[in-house]
């Protein structure tokens, strides 16, 4: 374990060597990796943490962090997280926390080299965003400031190396930030229109008496409005988050494979959403309006995820055929 030597500790024996025994002179560079030295200090400290990292330091930072964001979480819980569309926020936080916890040894490896300047600069900028976001109820900004605050925490506790190694869980937290209303408005309508067009075309082609006006579908005696929630915008983000988590857990080494999979989730989630809308239209047409609005609505939502996950997994298996030889497959998992 390299932990027993501080960065200056390695040099010290070299300087003192001429006066001491010649044996020491040869030793230092090797000592960093010899197992004998690791017996001096425990390799694993409190909670499996690197013993060179101050556990109280982490706890103090986390306590301040939680105090800062408790209000934001409470507000999110009663607004964004309470909606059907973006209710996945807490799960994202749990997943990110679990990822950081399970990789804590790797992330906080080596002697701490805090980057004070970068850390405090980032902390200062983050605090400005946080104060404005929280006081002026721009919740997106307050929530997003969490990510840079954690980045500043890694910089101040352990330095750039730790920040680099924790990039994925930190990036993953982007999915818990509520989508800005303006963005949602701008994307929802084109998506809704596209979903309506494709669903209508497919059903018309199969032979159903269906017509479309804007995002209003008319099938037989029923008129159905493709609601905002049916645009699939939110399921797109949820599925993208799930996909990234899947890739991270599978630990594929090939960048190309990860990128292809991440991009393919976009059309996959669109197809799944069209499937859901078609199912709802068919249920309404064959079983009546009540069925379409009742249990079937939830059922169709589940169908969306089943279709999407099946397609994603299937596509990943297809990729495995191509990427096996290049070291991108499961054989290279850790």
């Amino acid at each position, binding site marked *: 374990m390299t932990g027993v030597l501080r960065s200056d500790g390695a040099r010290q024996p070299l300087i003192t060597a001429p006066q001491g025994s010649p044996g020491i002179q040869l030793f230092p560079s090797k*000592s960093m990796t010899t197992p004998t030295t690791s017996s001096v200090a425990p390799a694993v400290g409190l909670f499996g943490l690197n*013993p060179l990292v101050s556990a109280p330091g982490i706890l103090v930072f986390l306590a301040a962090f939680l105090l800062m964001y408790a209000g934001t979480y409470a507000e999110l819980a009663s607004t964004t997280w309470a909606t059907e569309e973006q209710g996945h926020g807490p799960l994202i936080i749990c997943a990110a926390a679990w990822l950081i916890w399970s990789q804590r040894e790797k992330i906080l490896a080596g002697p701490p080299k805090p980057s004070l300047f970068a850390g405090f600069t980032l902390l200062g900028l983050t605090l400005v965003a946080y104060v404005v976001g929280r006081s002026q109820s721009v919740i997106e900004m307050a929530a997003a400031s969490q990510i840079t*605050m954690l980045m500043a925490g890694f910089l101040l506790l352990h330095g750039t190396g730790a920040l680099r190694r924790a990039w994925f869980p930190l990036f993953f937290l982007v999915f818990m930030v509520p989508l800005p209303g*303006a963005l949602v408005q701008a994307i929802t309508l084109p998506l809704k229109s596209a979903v309506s067009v494709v669903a209508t075309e497919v059903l018309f082609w199969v032979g159903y008496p269906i017509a479309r006006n804007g995002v209003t579908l008319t099938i037989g005696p029923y008129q159905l409005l493709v609601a905002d929630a049916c645009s699939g915008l939110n399921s797109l983000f949820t599925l993208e988050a799930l996909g990234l988590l899947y890739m991270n857990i599978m630990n594929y080494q090939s960048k190309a494979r990860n990128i292809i999979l991440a991009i393919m989730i976009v059309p996959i989630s669109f197809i799944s959403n069209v499937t859901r809308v078609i199912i709802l239209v068919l249920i309404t047409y064959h079983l009546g309006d009540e069925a379409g609005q009742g249990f079937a609505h939830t059922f169709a939502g589940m169908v969306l995820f089943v279709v999407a996950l099946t397609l994603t997994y299937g596509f990943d298996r297809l990729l495995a055929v191509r990427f096996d030889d290049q070291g991108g497959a499961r054989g290279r998992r850790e």
Partner: protein
Amino acid sequence: MIKEVHVAVANDLPKRVKFPGAILVAAALMLGGLGVSEWLKPSRVMADELRPVVMKEFLPEQFGDWRVDHSGPAVIYDPTVEAKLSTLYSGTLNVTYVNSKGDAMMLSLAYGKNQNSWNTAAHRPEFCYSAQGFEVQGRGQAKLALNGHDIDVIRLMSRRGQQIEPITYWVTLHDTAALPGISRKLQQMRYGLQGMIVDGFLFRISSLGSNEAEQFKLQEGFVRDLEKALPPEQRVRLFGKP
């Protein structure tokens, strides 16, 4: 020999890892940020300080050459749209005015008491028109000259079948006319940092006719006449401060 090194290295190790001072400073700053953000939260609800808005009485029955047309149904909304509107706005009003030449002007007013809230930001006519099957084309921003000052407005051209409907709209925050989007958000934050929770309107007019320039001119004249006819307090709330 190896043993000696062990001792040397072991003695070199601090018994306990020093508490990082930077973290203490950081935690203090973080808690300070929490305090400042609490202190900066706006608390003056401007809607409660001004005269309450009663939508039905907000607009005059008659002004200039225009009077309210009671003959036909104003606008028919989809019930789901209606339900959504009531969660977005504290009040809505749709009126049709006619003038002596037989021109009709459809005015739609939406009022939100708390423009700071996460879900009451005005939603844009571009989206609701196209959602109802209109084909909407942007005509960009324009300056609309009122009696004392200019305001920025957005112009649209919507078409459904044979019906061509040019639209002009803008939003207001407290006593400022604005356009939806970032500038409106910044304006809202400016009020917020002064401690005010402001209210706001969405003002939209449209008329039927394929000659764009003519219709937009008619709309401009309508707005100017309306501004002249309103009492000062209401004027500021719909058209902003000069």
